[in-house]
């Protein structure tokens, strides 16, 4: 039997209601023996060989943070690019400041390009958005990079701006570029369906296996820096099952990686097609057989209702969008219902992407049908993102027994400037109404959907507690939640949404020894400062992993 290690700390928040506070925790063989004080741990420490590890004694300890919804594969493709963004991003290998205005944007771009622009075949930068950075064109890019391919990847992922060398690189047909309604050949701008044309040419570069692996390594550092010990890939297979599995298994299964990852595959091989559900299930079952300790499946699937919120493609109930445009269904409602019913009857746990209130309506109506057909006391049905919903829908979610995994970051980045133009103040300000969830006692988690938001649980908690817009106004103060609720949402309630509450999420006997060590206490600092608390280290199954400076 191994020896016991006791970690001491200024304060341990166990996130257990029965015993919320401690100052020491005993760990052995990757499991928690119990938490308490050095005195109360004596029955253990007097009986067995013990090491007292005091290195965290002036720090604050939490259960290891959990992000139940992010996309390692998206991160892997994105992270090798240069980030020039309107908001600040805290990445492990670089601190990205907030850049606003066209002049500052171009200056930052020039500086980055001059530094190492020609190192790779294409210089890719991500984060541009015309609302913050003005209208940047091919000519602007040509001045910075006259000979080398330079690509701006829009913040929303739905637009690309290319310089002349990049246009030559993608080898797009000239005639197609001239005539395409969503390609502005003069400005070098490829939008929506036009972006797909450019992507076809860029894909071999962006998805090059070596680049992907480098990106994945970078992503693992990002995730560690945020203080995570467990995450879930909530759309495994978004690009390609095999490529992703091989990369993850190679990178994430190593001892040096202090992370376990739950994989939730897309429930349909093909969202549009007619192929029988059994085909998708077979593929998923084959994948599930590959589960190992750090990379595993759990009879869960991901389905979709409406489109992406960053591109204003959510489906809205009346009165809809201010400009009258329509959102988009990612799955035909009938197919969605068929898929839910199929997996419900197979005993699966279902996660549903919902961004607009009409998307939520479809999900809730369908859940209600399932509860009538084949009732389940714990339906294990989770709304993912929880963009725009109504109070009435929250009451229905409660009655149907659903869970919610919310993306609070929308409130901060989109709440004000973007959505005040899109859907009006009322619905924009009340986006991601976590206060309503808390009032109804609906279990909910917070997630980042990295790369849509920074992979920083404390930042997400900060948004949920303060609901500060970009300019510092509070959006819908009634929908703020308490610090305690926010911290639960990144620990024990997130564990619950992933069905892992018996092994992670709080500090109590028998659970995995996963901790996140902070320099300061979210319960003590002014709420506006929660995002600035530094993650000092994580402990993964008893082993310490410090965050690099």
């Amino acid at each position, binding site marked *: 039997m191994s020896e016991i290690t006791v970690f001491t700390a200024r304060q341990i928040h166990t996130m257990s209601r029965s015993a919320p506070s401690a100052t020491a925790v005993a760990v052995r063989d990757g499991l928690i023996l119990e938490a308490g004080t050095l005195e109360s741990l004596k029955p253990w420490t007097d009986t067995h060989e013990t090491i007292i590890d005091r290195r965290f004694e002036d720090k604050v300890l939490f259960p290891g943070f959990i992000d139940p919804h992010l996309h390692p594969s998206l991160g892997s493709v994105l992270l090798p690019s240069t980030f020039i963004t309107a908001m600040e991003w805290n990445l492990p290998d670089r601190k990205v400041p907030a850049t606003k205005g066209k002049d500052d944007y171009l200056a930052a771009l020039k500086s980055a390009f001059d530094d190492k622009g020609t190192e790779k075949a294409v210089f890719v930068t991500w984060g541009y958005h015309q609302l913050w950075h003005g209208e940047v064109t091919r000519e602007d890019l040509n001045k910075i990079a006259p000979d080398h391919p330079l690509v701006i990847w829009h913040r929303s992922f739905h637009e690309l701006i290319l310089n002349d060398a990049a246009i030559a690189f993608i080898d797009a047909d000239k005639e197609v570029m001239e005539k*395409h309604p969503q390609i502005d050949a003069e400005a070098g701008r490829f939008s929506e369906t036009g972006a797909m044309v450019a992507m076809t040419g860029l894909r071999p570069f962006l998805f090059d296996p070596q680049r992907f692996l480098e990106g994945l390594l970078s992503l693992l550092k990002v995730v560690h820096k945020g203080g995570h010990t467990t995450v879930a890939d909530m759309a495994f297979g978004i690009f390609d099952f095999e490529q992703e599995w091989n990369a993850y298994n190679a990178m994430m299964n190593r001892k040096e990686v202090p992370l376990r990852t739950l994989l939730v595959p897309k429930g349909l091989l093909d969202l549009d097609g007619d192929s029988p559900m059994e085909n998708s299930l077979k593929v998923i079952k084959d994948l599930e057989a590959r589960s190992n300790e750090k990379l595993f499946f759990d009879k869960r699937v991901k389905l979709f209702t409406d489109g992406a919120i960053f591109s204003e493609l959510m489906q809205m109930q009346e009165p809809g969008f201010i400009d009258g445009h329509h959102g988009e269904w*990612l799955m035909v409602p009938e197919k969605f219902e068929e898929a839910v019913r199929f997996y419900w009857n197979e005993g699966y746990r279902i996660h549903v992407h919902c961004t607009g209130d009409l998307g939520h309506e479809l999900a809730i109506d369908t859940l209600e049908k399932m509860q009538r057909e084949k009732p389940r006391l714990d339906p294990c049905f989770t709304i993912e993102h929880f963009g725009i919903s109504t109070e009435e829908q929250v009451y229905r979610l409660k009655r149907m027994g659903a869970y919610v995994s919310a993306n609070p970051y929308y409130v901060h980045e989109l709440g004000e400037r973007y959505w005040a133009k899109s859907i009006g103040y009322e619905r924009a300000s009340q986006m991601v109404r976590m206060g309503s969830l808390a009032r109804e006692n609906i279990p909910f988690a917070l997630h980042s959907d990295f790369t849509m938001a920074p992979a920083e649980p404390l930042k997400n908690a900060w948004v949920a507690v303060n609901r500060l817009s970009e300019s510092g106004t509070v959006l819908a103060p009634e929908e703020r939640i308490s610090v305690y609720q926010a911290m639960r949402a990144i620990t024990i309630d997130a564990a619950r949404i992933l069905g892992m509450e018996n092994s992670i999420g709080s500090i109590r006997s028998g659970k995995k020894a996963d901790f996140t060590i902070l320099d300061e206490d979210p319960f003590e600092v002014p709420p506006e400062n929660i995002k600035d608390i530094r993650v000092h280290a994580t402990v993964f199954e008893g082993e310490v992993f410090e965050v690099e400076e």
Partner: protein
Amino acid sequence: MAVPCVFFTGYLGAGKTTLINILLSLSTGRRVTVLVNDFGSINIDADLIENQNGETISLSNGCACCTIGDSLLESAEKVLEEFSPDLLVIEASGVAEPNRLKNLLAGVKGIEHPRALSVVNADDIEKKLNDKFVGKLCRQQVREADALYFNRYTQDQIYPLQERLSVFHVPTFFEAREVMEFILEADPYDRDLDLVLEKTEIEHGLQSVIIDCSETISRLEFEHQLKPLQEICHRIKGFIRLEEGRVYAVQATDTSLELTRTSVGNSPPRLQLVCIGPDLKMHQAVFDAWQKKPIKIKKPA
């Protein structure tokens, strides 16, 4: 040379796949390549299949059917290169919006001005237009169409539906035959086209009767004689020769008759009438009545 392209939009259950199945079974002498989401509901006569692998079915009539896979852009380019078709037909997904799809197809080199054919299931379109989830989408699919095909309609629905959808300006088809003509830009009286469609229409509860009209007739006489036929048929089309010796194209419904002078050209059209309607067998007497006049009738098969 740009390849003509037609795509079928329309909500789930409208009847897009049925059209695909009909199209693939025709021998028109043209190489038609069809892109579908998957082969699930594709139903092709086994005799026609030359070759089949996971993603492609090649047919002995020169047609091919391929799955779209991850990227419509890339699969469209791939099939244009691989098959060099005379015509590309795409089965869009049930949630596709015609204008957005046209934008997408603008990225494919070799296709120009794709045409949107919206398939409308007349049986449940009213319900769909009022559906809280897809009402707007269905209206958009109809509004943005270049042509419409009404499926499973009853005679009295046609006008009210067209009014409801405000689509009088768009060519509207009521039979698969007309859809095929639109897609193939074909000779409307292609005999091979007839044979296969006859079979299909019978499957859909419609029958067709072909009446030979090789004798010349006066206009008044023709209009008079047509009336009993108009009462029992949805549509009547064909060519006749009127008394002054000229050939006229005939287009008639139960309430209208249009005679258009036709230039004969190199291959004069066959002088006959094709009558399409439900339960024509019940009206044997009407066809028999024709036989007494100088118009010969081919009896229904």
